[in-house]
């Protein structure tokens, strides 16, 4: 399948399917990669090097900074797959790449494609928005 590229890059990793949208600000500890939002059902999950799959981004515009900081520390997800476009996450990934030369692809997928990704599935993301389930 192929998604709309919000920020381009290559990645591979195990899918972490989030049942609810996550705001990186107040939701991700960039020092550890742990999901820390007390209201989120998957609190305690580790996002580092996972392909995070969620219906949409949420909330604070400070999430760009938190994602860029997680890229700096090496605790960012490998990629983020969304069900709608999200400028905040795309810019966080772009700045992470500008500053630290690491690319975290951010894609917007069709709802049916997104729903077909199971938690723990091995995913490979190629340039131009290509997503392969191994």
């Amino acid at each position, binding site marked *: 399948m192929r998604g709309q590229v*919000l*920020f381009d890059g290559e990645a591979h990793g195990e899918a972490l399917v989030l049942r609810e949208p996550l705001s990186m*600000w*107040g939701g991700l500890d*960039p020092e550890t990669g742990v999901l820390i*939002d*007390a*209201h989120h059902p998957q609190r305690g999950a580790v996002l580092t090097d996972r392909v995070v799959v969620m219906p949409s981004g*949420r*909330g*604070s*515009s*400070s*999430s*760009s*900074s*938190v994602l*860029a*900081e997680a*890229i*700096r*520390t090496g605790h960012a997800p490998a990629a983020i797959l969304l069900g709608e*476009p*999200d*400028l*905040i996450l*795309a*810019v*966080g990934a*772009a*700045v*992470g790449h*500008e*500053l630290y030369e690491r690319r975290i692809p951010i894609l917007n997928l069709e709802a049916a494609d997104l729903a077909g990704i199971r938690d723990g599935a091995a995913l490979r993301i190629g340039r131009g928005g290509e997503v392969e389930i191994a």
Partner: protein
Amino acid sequence: MAVALDDRERAMLAGDLGTGAALAMRLVLLAADVLRAERLIPISRAHVDSCLHHGQASQDFVDRLLDGGAQVGVPTTLNVGTLDLLHPELWRGSAEAAARGRRLMESYRSLGCRPTFTCAPYQLPDARPQLGEQVAWAESNAIVFCNTVLGARTERYGDFTDIACAIAGRVPDAGLHRDEARHASIVLRLADDVPPSLVESDVLYPVLGIVLGRVAGAQVVALDGLPRLDEDRLKAVCAAAASSGSVAMFHVVGSTPEAPTLEAALGGRRPEREVEVTLDQLRSARDALSTGGAEPGDPIGAVSLGTPHASVTELAAIAEELDGGHVAPEVELLVSTSRGVMESEAARGPIARLREAGAEILVDTCSYLGPILRPTPLPTMTDSGKWAYYAPGNIGARVVFGSRRECVRSALRGTLWRDPGLWGGR
């Protein structure tokens, strides 16, 4: 989709105006791509939120811009930073964290931004855009206020994008910058069981904002059937709606400039949904804001007012409620405002009365961003929907939400006071 660029935009992208400007233009073009814009349009102002420290990446980014010779291309105000630069003694965190926060705030000044350090730039007379003006604003409450109350046009810009637009002087021609995205698709009304006394109280508006945010998601709502609302009440709805939802704009029919009538707010179309909010729904949203578990008569530790930053009229209203009394010795009453409002002639009297009553005035930051309030195991009261929403997660506060009068009287007594008739007895 390729974005059509003019000569100046191309030159900036090519690095002819420095590597900092080129970085800014790359980010503006990324935004244009994500928002599917076909071109960029000029802006007249910007409001930047990136000056709040979220880690080393915050400083690395602004250093990259400064090293590349970047300066803002339009008048640019700054949002809150980590600490109150005018009252640094109010910071209770480490000296290192304070130094990092201060350095970032100073770096944004070096880019040519005005050191306003406020989440309510719309309260500064020379920073308010006019109806129809194209701007790039960040900070969720300010974005909603800008679109809704001022009728100026901004998308939901966030960290990095805000300063990139300010340097480039351009935004993507997309979203709320264009007429078609500004019309409401949902109509929200209060049900008949909401008593007029509640509609007249300030306490309704943050709660209504929380409900509006949940109903709207990212759509535009028209609030119909309300009396004419002043800017303080509109601010409370804006801030709460942007906390519980991804709201960037709504209309209040009869109060906001693009909604003289319901038909105008809807752009002549039929609404997708019409929603009535009952008194029970409002009470339940109100109750969800109070995580402190306190009953009337229980001791409280602190009261935090002024989120978003208090206006001159709000400072005067708090001073009025204090009525010459003094804050109970075991309670901290903190009132946040901007340095611009604090230093204005009109605020001098109210500020003096607040200080005489034992209140502390905080500027340049907000009490839910870091260690500023005196640590207390007891609940903190607030009249702000936004403060109530974020403070438990950010600083671990136990929150009790109430009206301004409930907050101030509780601060005077040292124990939680409830206005018995306010919510129809429950």
